């Protein structure tokens, strides 16, 4: 007998779920550190009515947390009291996690388990001046304004004097604009939001914006790409082959270069050979969202076309027009007739074989009788 079989015996591998869902609200809190700061947050727990829930703290600063309760059954709420110390050595972001988990029941088999955590983000000021940025540039269209949104956070324990600029670069990395947002003093643990519009004198295309904030003690930078759209829908590709087999689909992949939805886009398709029109048809109309790619599919009857190459002209209509030309082939369906012939001949041979085998005894019998 196989030794391995002796060792192994039987396994029953099961994963049985003991919990389905768990939730905590609010999902996040943020606070700035101050010496001996006392914080009190109430959390609600979404759980099934019979779930045994345990509350715990994890991550940074967990030793400073006390809960109003640590165990309960089902949906409930609790309070987290946080008493921060006089001083925290590490500056920057400290993430304290308030966790909620089900107390796993020991039953036959095991199961999946869910834990949800609500982070409490406590920012400790950096010594001296320190700036952090949040920067956004929104896509737009030509002749529409370009909105910039730069927030400068003073994360140090001293206020900062800022003088932000925004530089715009094109795809070839040529600087096309530099915008000075003016100087601003931002107190420590405070922030200021520079929001405004650029005069859009750029052509359509992809750009890169770099915000640079010089705050004497240092420089903070943030970067964001953005696109300037124009009302144009391009044809990326289209069906370059169709079967000579009745009604056939003709697919056109199109892409919008406009920052708003474009409705009622449809294509006129003209197929010709030797400058003689043979088929033309319209596709159904579709809507493209901003910068979206999609396909439109029309149908054509290829049964009267000859095999070979045809000229294709596609006119895309969407208020404006995009016209492209190309080629397509009308091809025959993959021919399986040869295989069918082989199978047919093979079957015929088998039939003949059995037919002859059945007939031979009679022949033999006739021959026998003749001999007699």
């Amino acid at each position: 007998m196989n030794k391995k079989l002796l060792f192994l015996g039987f396994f029953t591998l099961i994963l049985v779920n003991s919990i389905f869902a768990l939730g905590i609200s609010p999902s996040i809190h943020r606070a700035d550190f101050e010496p001996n700061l006392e914080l009190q947050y109430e959390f609600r727990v979404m759980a099934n009515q019979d779930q045994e829930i345990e509350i715990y703290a994890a991550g940074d600063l967990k030793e400073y947390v006390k809960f109003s309760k640590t165990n309960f059954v089902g949906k409930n709420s609790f309070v987290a009291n946080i008493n921060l110390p006089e001083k925290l050595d590490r500056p920057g972001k400290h993430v304290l996690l308030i966790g909620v988990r089900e107390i796993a029941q020991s039953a036959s088999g095991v199961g999946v388990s869910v834990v949800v955590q609500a982070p409490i983000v406590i920012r400790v000021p950096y010594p001296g001046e320190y700036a952090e940025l949040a920067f956004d540039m929104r896509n737009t269209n030509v002749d529409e304004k370009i909105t910039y949104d730069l927030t400068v956070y003073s994360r140090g324990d001293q206020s900062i004097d800022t003088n932000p600029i925004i530089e715009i670069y094109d795809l070839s990395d040529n600087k096309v604009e530099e915008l000075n947002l003016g100087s601003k003093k931002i107190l420590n643990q405070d922030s200021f939001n520079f929001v405004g519009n650029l005069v859009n004198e750029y052509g359509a295309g992809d750009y890169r914006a770099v915000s640079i904030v010089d705050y004497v003690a240092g420089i903070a930078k943030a970067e964001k790409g953005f696109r300037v759209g124009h009302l144009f829908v391009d044809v990326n590709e289209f069906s370059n082959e169709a079967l000579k087999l009745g009604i056939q689909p003709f697919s056109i992949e199109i892409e919008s270069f406009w920052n708003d939805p474009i409705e009622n886009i449809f294509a006129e398709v003209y197929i010709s050979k030797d400058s003689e029109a043979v088929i033309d048809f319209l596709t159904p109309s579709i809507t493209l969202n901003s910068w979206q790619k999609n396909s439109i599919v029309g149908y054509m009857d290829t049964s009267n076309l000859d095999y070979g190459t045809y000229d294709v002209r596609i006119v895309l209509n969407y208020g404006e027009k995009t016209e492209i030309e190309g080629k397509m082939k009308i091809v025959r369906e993959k021919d399986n007739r040869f295989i069918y012939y082989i199978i047919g001949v093979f079957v015929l041979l088998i039939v003949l074989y059995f037919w002859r085998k059945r007939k031979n005894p009679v022949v033999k019998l006739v021959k026998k009788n003749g001999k007699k």
Partner: protein
Amino acid sequence: MALKVKDRGRGFWFYLVLLLLVISVVMFLINISKFYGITGNATGTANLTISTVSSINFSTGNISWGVGEVDSGQSVAILDTSAGTVTDGNWTAISVGLVIENIGNGNLTLKIATSKSAAEFIGGGDGTALTDSDYRLNISSAESGSCTNSTDYTGTGTRMTSGYNRSFFFNANFTSPGTLVCDNFFFDDAKDTVRIDLQLNISADSNITGTIGDIITATAAAVA
């Protein structure tokens, strides 16, 4: 004289009708004013706050291969939910994974941990030899784009891209809170579901028998 009495009677009816007319007009105006607000508009404000909620749900949380053993003469049996196969063993093949949905209203981070190592779960060595047991997991977006990850959590130079990718597995991490598999587990209805697939390589040398199992813990937190 008789004429005067008659005039008085007519006058009574005249004033009565006039009074009723005035009352009727006043009532009409009151009703109209109520309808069109002639008497002034009352305005009110409705305030509400929608709380942020972090919540996840295992919509599929059960995998059971039943009873089985490594085929005679084979060194390892492979049970793989992503392929839906059992190779060189006679357990029942399972093609469903564990499915987790973000049912809150914010993006989350998602970490996955097992409770046991391969050796503790299915025995058969420590995973260093080819014939040792392995306990591996795969995470994929059950709805395309549900999860993004900027870290190489597999340790293989491969990481999950958007879409449903079941082509690679990583070793089960039994150190709480586990492996960060999604640094953005989205809450949009169209892309809020990920799937965990399991691959068990069970060594024929395993000395664990009977009913066995493990707990897979999904830990979710708001993106801080």
